[in-house]
Structures are given as structure tokens and as C-alpha cells.
């Protein structure tokens, strides 16, 4: 069913009087008040409620659908985290209120820093980056600050394996570094010989995701760390895939000097649709002085903000106050509910679910991109064979899955695997849901043999059918114009 824009529901003079303020605001000077009504849609309260309720029902979301969007960790966000983070004592707290009256809030953040430090094996944690991209920026900025503080000014190259997370080269460039890409081997591991060839006195560091975006664990990580450290560089861990190793392996123990964590992935805070996110960073000993501020310190049994005075070499502030404080509280509550044993269960079930799904899809006739490797928390199937033999693409499968009531996996990423689907079931899905997904994939595969056009023109059951991606990218038209009404 096509849902009209709210502007198309509008009728001049129709209002929801119950929503009007009881009195004119007294504290806005007359000269600053608008005299003309804003060009907003005019609808009744019921029309507004129905419109937005219907829109919300058109969504694919983790609350309504299996959402195996690889590399994004779309897992369930427990309601309790939301309920507790919304306590009025948290919500009503002013960011400028003195430390003495915010000891509970500061205590939560301090404990969150400590738990993240422990679970990643790092020496210090700063929660201030507002999202993953800013966490990455903070991480590379700290690496640069470290080299510069030592007078080692020639180190401007960041090595990025082609299986790294796609944002890594962008981050390195934003930090003024030069990106040096190295290839992966056919088995998914880093090409160690290529790494040895590119490291040297210009190496600032390497950015890695482990497990990599190929859905496999980087087996020679200790060797990689040795080569980069021996060359004078630092190791950056992109926490995008932390869900696979939580409570099992610690990036600090693998030799990483800095890590960013997407709290909105692994630690189950809301994500998608633009956030708010959180990109907390953890650092090893060498980068401790450079952490972004503020961080929460503890003296005796009192908590306080640590600022420029405490960390004079800090790369500075990345946000006015303390990142997305509400998101940090949700992550804190999630971790407290899980506890140490619970965190291990997260990664155990995340990898078990991924490997179960991989095994069943292989049995159903799909090709794993790395068939001799065990999956991490996610895995890649390649539809190269189906594309060649049946003329159907990964995008066709993704679109047809929507008709079966599943959000599509990540398509065409990572770029080095042709016609790929990157599938991440997460630990919060029941076996029945995974089985239903396999049934849908098998049904689509059978259909690709008998009626491939059904795939080419999918989706068929949704309010919006197959989009013209090219036109959408070239002729973005997002503005409703009153004149057209």
C-alpha cells in the first residue's frame, strides 16, 4: 500500500487544537515572534498518529524482522537497558552540574571505562567519541600525536589490508596520512610478504579488523604485530567485529596499541538510521597520555572529570560534553546484565549461529567464499556461479529476500568477493529463525532456476518495488514543493 506524504494529507485550517500550547509563551520578546504560520502540514491528531504508525510498520527493523546485515551486528537491544537509562535521575541531569552532585552518573561511566578496558585488554579507555567514525579518527589522531611527540615526523603512512573495514582508508586520509593498501591471500589471511615489503621508517601504523570483513579470523596476527612494531609502527584495531571475540580473545593481548569500539554494535545500543552512536576508544600504555578528553577519573571513592590539566598531551575534545551519554548508559547496563560469563556467551553463540547458518546454506547449494575456513560471527557466500549459470545477481537475491520477510544481508561488500552476500545472524536469533532464513534462500535458489525474472523484478510484495538505483543516485529529489499540491 502506498502511503501518502504527510503534506499530501494536509488541508488548510485543519488543526489538532489539543496539541497547542495553553498560552502564548511569555518569555519570547514580541519582536522575535513569527507572525506568519510556518509551512507545516495541517492534519488532525488522528491523521498524524495513523500516518506515522503506518510509516513505522513499513520498516524492516530488528524488532520486526531477522536482520542479518553483515558487518553491522544488528542484534536485539534489551528493553531493560532503555528503561534504566531513561530514569529521570539520568535524563534530567544537566551536563554542567558539579561533579559532587553527579557521582552516580560519573560512577557508571567510570565502571563502563573499566569494563571495556578489561574486556579489550587495553590500559585506558575514553568514552567521548560520538560514533564509530569519530572513534576511528581519535585512534589515528593518537597514533600521529604519539609519533610527533617523539619527533618522529616522517611516519605518515597507514597500512590498510584490502580486507579491512571500508572506513579505515577514509579515516587515515582524514588524519592527513597516506594509505598503503596490501592484499589478502586466497585463504583470507593478510599477505605477510606484502606487509614486509611496505613497512619502514614512514610507517605510522596498520589498521586491522580481526576477524576481518571476510568473516575469518586473522591467524597470523602475532606475526603481523611483530613486523609492524619492529618497523616502529603502531597497530590499530577496528572494533567493528568485536562481537566475534568478546570475552574470548583481547585485542590488547594480540598486540594492538589502540582500538575503537562501536558500542552500538557489540554492546547493543540502538543503531541504524543515523545513530546516536558511540565510538569509545581504548589505548595501550604508549598512547595513554593522548586520549581524547574528558575521561572519568577516580580518587579515593570520588569520581571526577579529567581534563586538559590532567592530560596535557590529549588530542583534545571531540564533543562538548561526554559523547552520547544516554547511549553510554545503555551499554553500561547491557554489560552489567551480561557479566563476564555472559559476554563469553555472546561470542560463543554469535559464532555458533554463523557457523550453523553457513553449514546449512552450503548444504542448500550455496558457495562459501572461503570454503575451508570456519566462520567468525559472520560469513560470505558468493553467488558467482548462480550469476554465471542462471543470470541472477546477489542484488536479486537480496531484493527477493524482502518478499520472504527478511532484511537482506550486506551486498557487494567486501568488494574483493564477486556477487557476495555478507551474512551476520548475531547471537540473539533462535534456531527456528535461522532455519526459516535457509528455507527462504533455498526457495529463491529454486526459483532462480525456474523463473529468474521473478528475482530480477523483486520485491513484489512491498509498497516500493525495485528502485532505479542509477536514477536515485544521480537525480536525488527529496523536497516536497507546495506548488505541486
Amino acid at each position, binding site marked *: 500500500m502506498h502511503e501518502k506524504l504527510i503534506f499530501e494529507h494536509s488541508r488548510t485550517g485543519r488543526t489538532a487544537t489539543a496539541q497547542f500550547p495553553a498560552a502564548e509563551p511569555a518569555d519570547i520578546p514580541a519582536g522575535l515572534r513569527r507572525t506568519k504560520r510556518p509551512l507545516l502540514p495541517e492534519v488532525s491528531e488522528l491523521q498524524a498518529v495513523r500516518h506515522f504508525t503506518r510509516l513505522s510498520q513499513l520498516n524492516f527493523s530488528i524488532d520486526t524482522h531477522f536482520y542479518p546485515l553483515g558487518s553491522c551486528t544488528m542484534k536485539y537491544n534489551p528493553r531493560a537497558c532503555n528503561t534504566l537509562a531513561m530514569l529521570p535521575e539520568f535524563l534530567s541531569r544537566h551536563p554542567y552540574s558539579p561533579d559532587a552532585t553527579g557521582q552516580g552518573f560519573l560512577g557508571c561511566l567510570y565502571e563502563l571505562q573499566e569494563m571495556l578496558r578489561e574486556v579489550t585488554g587495553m590500559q585506558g579507555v575514553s568514552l567521548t567519541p560520538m560514533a564509530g567514525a569519530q572513534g576511528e579518527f581519535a585512534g589515528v589522531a593518537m597514533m600521529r600525536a604519539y609519533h610527533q611527540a617523539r619527533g618522529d615526523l616522517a611516519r605518515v603512512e597507514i597500512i590498510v589490508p584490502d580486507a579491512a573495514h571500508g572506513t579505515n582508508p577514509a579515516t587515515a586520509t582524514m588524519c592527513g596520512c597516506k594509505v598503503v593498501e596490501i592484499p589478502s591471500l586466497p585463504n583470507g589471511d593478510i599477505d605477510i610478504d606484502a606487509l614486509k615489503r611496505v613497512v619502514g621508517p614512514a610507517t605510522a601504523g596498520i589498521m586491522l579488523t580481526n576477524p576481518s570483513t571476510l568473516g575469518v579470523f586473522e591467524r597470523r596476527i602475532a606475526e603481523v604485530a611483530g613486523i609492524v612494531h619492529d618497523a616502529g609502527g603502531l597497530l590499530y584495531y577496528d572494533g567493528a567485529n568485536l562481537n566475534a571475540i568478546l570475552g574470548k580473545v583481547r585485542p590488547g593481548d594480540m598486540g594492538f596499541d589502540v582500538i575503537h569500539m562501536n558500542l552500538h554494535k557489540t554492546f547493543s545500543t540502538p543503531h541504524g538510521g543515523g545513530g546516536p552512536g558511540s565510538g569509545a576508544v581504548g589505548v595501550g600504555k604508549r598512547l595513554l597520555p593522548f586520549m581524547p578528553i574528558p575521561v572519568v577519573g577516580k580518587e579515593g571513592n570520588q569520581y571526577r572529570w579529567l581534563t586538559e590539566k590532567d592530560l596535557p598531551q590529549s588530542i583534545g575534545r571531540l564533543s562538548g560534553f561526554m559523547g552520547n551519554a544516554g547511549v553510554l548508559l545503555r551499554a553500561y547496563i547491557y554489560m552489567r546484565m551480561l557479566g563476564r560469563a555472559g559476554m563469553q556467551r555472546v561470542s560463543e553463540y554469535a559464532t555458533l549461529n554463523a557457523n550453523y547458518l553457513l553449514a546449512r546454506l552450503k548444504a542448500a547449494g550455496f558457495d562459501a567464499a572461503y570454503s575451508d575456513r570456519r566462520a567468525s560471527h559472520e560469513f560470505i557466500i558468493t553467488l558467482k556461479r548462480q550469476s554465471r549459470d542462471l543470470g541472477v545477481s546477489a542484488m536479486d537475491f537480496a531484493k527477493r529476500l524482502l518478499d520472504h520477510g527478511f532484511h537482506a544481508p550486506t551486498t557487494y561488500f567486501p568488494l574483493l568477493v564477486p556477487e557476495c552476500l555478507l551474512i551476520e545472524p548475531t547471537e540473539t536469533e533462535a534456531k527456528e529463525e535461522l532455519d526459516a532464513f535457509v528455507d527462504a534462500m533455498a526457495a529463491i535458489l529454486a526459483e532462480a532456476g525456474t523463473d529468474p525474472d521473478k528475482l530480477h523484478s523483486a520485491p513484489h510484495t512491498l509498497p516500493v518495488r525495485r528502485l532505479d538505483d542509477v536514477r536515485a543516485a*544521480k537525480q536525488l529529489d527529496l523536497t516536497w514543493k507546495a506548488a505541486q499540491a
Partner: protein
Amino acid sequence: MTTPANLKFLKSHEWARTESDGTVTIGISDHAQNALGDLVFVDVPEVGKTLKSGEACAVVESVKAASDVYSPVSGEVVANNDALSATPELINTDPYGAGWIARIRPTNAAEIAQLLDAAAYDQVVAAEAH
């Protein structure tokens, strides 16, 4: 589409053609445009820019991905294909003709000889398919 025998190639799917005036026209192969899918944006190198062979000199963006285009030769950019800014799909429809990206005055003619010929490039593509 058969691979034109008068072109030379990089493994990374760029082609180069030596023109009668000694300049070299570059673009991306039919296989590359097919793998990328429908192009929506092309960033061509500026005229006057000096390139090194193997250096990223242009960006092609499709509905699937954005990729760097590497220059097969060193030299100075003497012309670029303006038409691609409004009609990037020329690369999809005519990768070896109207979809050319830039023309370069090479500084080292020996580099051309080191590129893959059409048969060798076809083997690269065939190897990728397995």
C-alpha cells in the same frame, strides 16, 4: 564484447591506447564496467596534472562501489573526457570508445611495452572467474 587487440591493459582492469600523435588514451575495461555495474559518477584527472604509472588518477563510482582508476603510464594529462560528468554511463555502453577517461602525454614510452596485451588480459579475467 571481445577485447580490442590494439589495446594494452593493467591487471587492475585499465586499458591504454597509443594514438597517432604519441599520446595515450586510457579507460577501464568492459570486464571492469560489468563488474562495477551502472556507473553514477566519474571523477576525471585535471588537464595539466602529472601522473606516475600505477598512481590513482580517477574515481569511478557505481551503484555498488567506488573504485580508483590507476594510470597505466607516467606523463601529463592533456585531455579528459568532460562528457562523463553528465553521462557516466558512457563507460557502461562504450568502455573502449566514448567512455574513455583521459589522454596522457607519456614521459616514458617503455612503460607501454610492459603492459599486458589483449590475450594476456583475457587470461587475467578468466583466472578471476574461477
